[in-house]
């Protein structure tokens, strides 16, 4: 296991959001996290990154990380692409990518050139302010920026939200490529078609806890879970 999460509880002020979330991530897998809006998927991502008040045990590559500040968690090799696509709008596309580089990155890892080769559109706009990119381009940029740090595990929160179908396909292909290069992926995704097609395993969250765990095929067979916890 690359990541083990045990009995995670999280709060915003007094509201108790996560109530005993436990799951594992295996090396190299794409784990999809499904569930309706507001059940706590983003909060789970934030909790893993040390960005919300929480209790519980989080172990990454055998080391406890639940007491570390966010930047140290990132330096250990967990990358995060949050749901609100935070490009640095006044920095250029290239500068955004540079912001993701980490000194302890691997030699064989991702580089800005990879980003430009994979997405010529980003190369064209390398010198322009990232805030002027379209939503889809910003999404690709945010993902590439996080990849510059060569994380061993990447958490990607709703990357296809609000994107046109062509962009959704690009994001999907990029996630497959990330996994192919050996990085484990936790993917929070609303679109069942995308999630079921690329995930190796699926978690379904109900109100602040995990209500289903299995393969995409298992989930396909469980109409009750889909009806109660996913479909609207």
């Amino acid at each position, binding site marked *: 296991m690359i990541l083990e999460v045990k009995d995670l509880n999280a709060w915003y002020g007094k509201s108790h959001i996560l109530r005993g979330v436990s799951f594992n991530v295996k090396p190299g897998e794409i784990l999809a996290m499904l569930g309706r809006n507001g059940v706590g998927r983003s909060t789970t991502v934030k909790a893993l*990154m040390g*960005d919300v008040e929480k209790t519980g045990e989080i172990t990454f590559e055998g080391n406890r990380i639940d007491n570390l*500040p*966010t*930047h140290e968690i*990132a*330096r250990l090799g967990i*990358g*995060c692409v*949050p749901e609100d696509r*935070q490009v*640095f709008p*006044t*920095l250029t596309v290239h*500068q955004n990518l*540079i*912001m*993701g580089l*980490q000194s302890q990155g691997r030699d064989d890892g991702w580089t800005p050139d990879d980003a430009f080769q994979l997405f010529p559109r980003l190369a064209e706009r390398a010198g322009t302010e990232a805030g002027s990119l379209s939503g889809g381009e910003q999404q690709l940029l945010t993902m590439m*920026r*996080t990849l510059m*740090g060569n994380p061993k595990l990447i958490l990607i929160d709703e990357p296809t939200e609000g994107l046109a179908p062509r962009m959704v396909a690009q994001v999907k292909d990029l996630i497959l490529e990330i996994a192919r290069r050996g990085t484990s992926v936790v993917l929070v995704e609303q679109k069942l078609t995308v999630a079921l097609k690329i995930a190796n395993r699926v978690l379904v969250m109900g109100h602040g806890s995990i209500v289903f765990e299995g393969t995409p095929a298992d989930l396909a067979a469980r109409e009750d879970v889909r009806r109660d916890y996913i479909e609207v």
Partner: protein
Amino acid sequence: MALFLLFLANGLAYGLTLFLLSSGVTLIFSMMGVLNFAHASFYMLGAYLGFQISQVTGFWGGLVLAPLMVGVIGGAVERYGLRRVHAHGHVAELLYTFGLAFLIEEIVQLIWGRSAVNYVFPDLLRTPIFAIAGLDYPAFRVVMAAISVMAFLMLLLLLLRTRVGLVVQSALTHARMTAMLGHNVPMVFMSVFAVGSGLAGLAGVLGGAALVTEPMMAQQLGPIVFVIVVIGGLGSLFGAFVASLAVGLLQTFAVGFDRSLGQLASSVGLAPDASGNFAELWSISLSQIAPLLPYMLLILMLVVRPRGIAGKRDL
């Protein structure tokens, strides 16, 4: 004309020194989201520490060491004070910086007394390099302007041309995302606070030696710095720069071209009745109004353009 150039030079030197202060307030505002009311106190600390060190090492030692010491003090204030207070919200932060300003003032009075200390530039810098219309232009004004410009250019190069600068820019606006990319944001914040305080300390050494070093100097300058930051637009370094020069020039010219309001009115074609009901009003002189000008500018700006010169949002 020569006189005009002299005032221009004086105004720019004063404006640039003001910018040393307002740049720090601006950076710290971007970071914390509140105005640091203790900032002018770091200016005062710079003056007093500069004075104290200059007793041992001469002026130049104070010029180098005092800003560094104020920077360290500023860093410690962030690390061990503000960072904890921050968790309790903006009001707590604001009160903290208020308290700090009073604390520093009391400490300064305790150590150096209530009256001004004798802190002046060395003779070398006080010699006039030229004289216009019977007014000397001392060398230290040139040195002040040069040091301020250098500090500003270094800050700008650091912010715009280095990776550290990128991290600072990002941390100021997107702290959480920046941390998620592995950057030590708390450390960045402490450094920004330290650098901002150090610049205020530098301004203090220059301002203290040029004007007067006394316990009221923080209280006197503080409001003007806030006026500048608001006129420039909260959080905008460029705006703070423009506003600093504007206020510096405005005040210098008002004091320099000392005319009464009556004379001014006449010169634009009005004919005030110097013995009528408003005689007192017309006899007020520009230099008497000079201290008010920044506040008048502030009020005008808030009415006409609440976001300031280069601010991104209205107040």
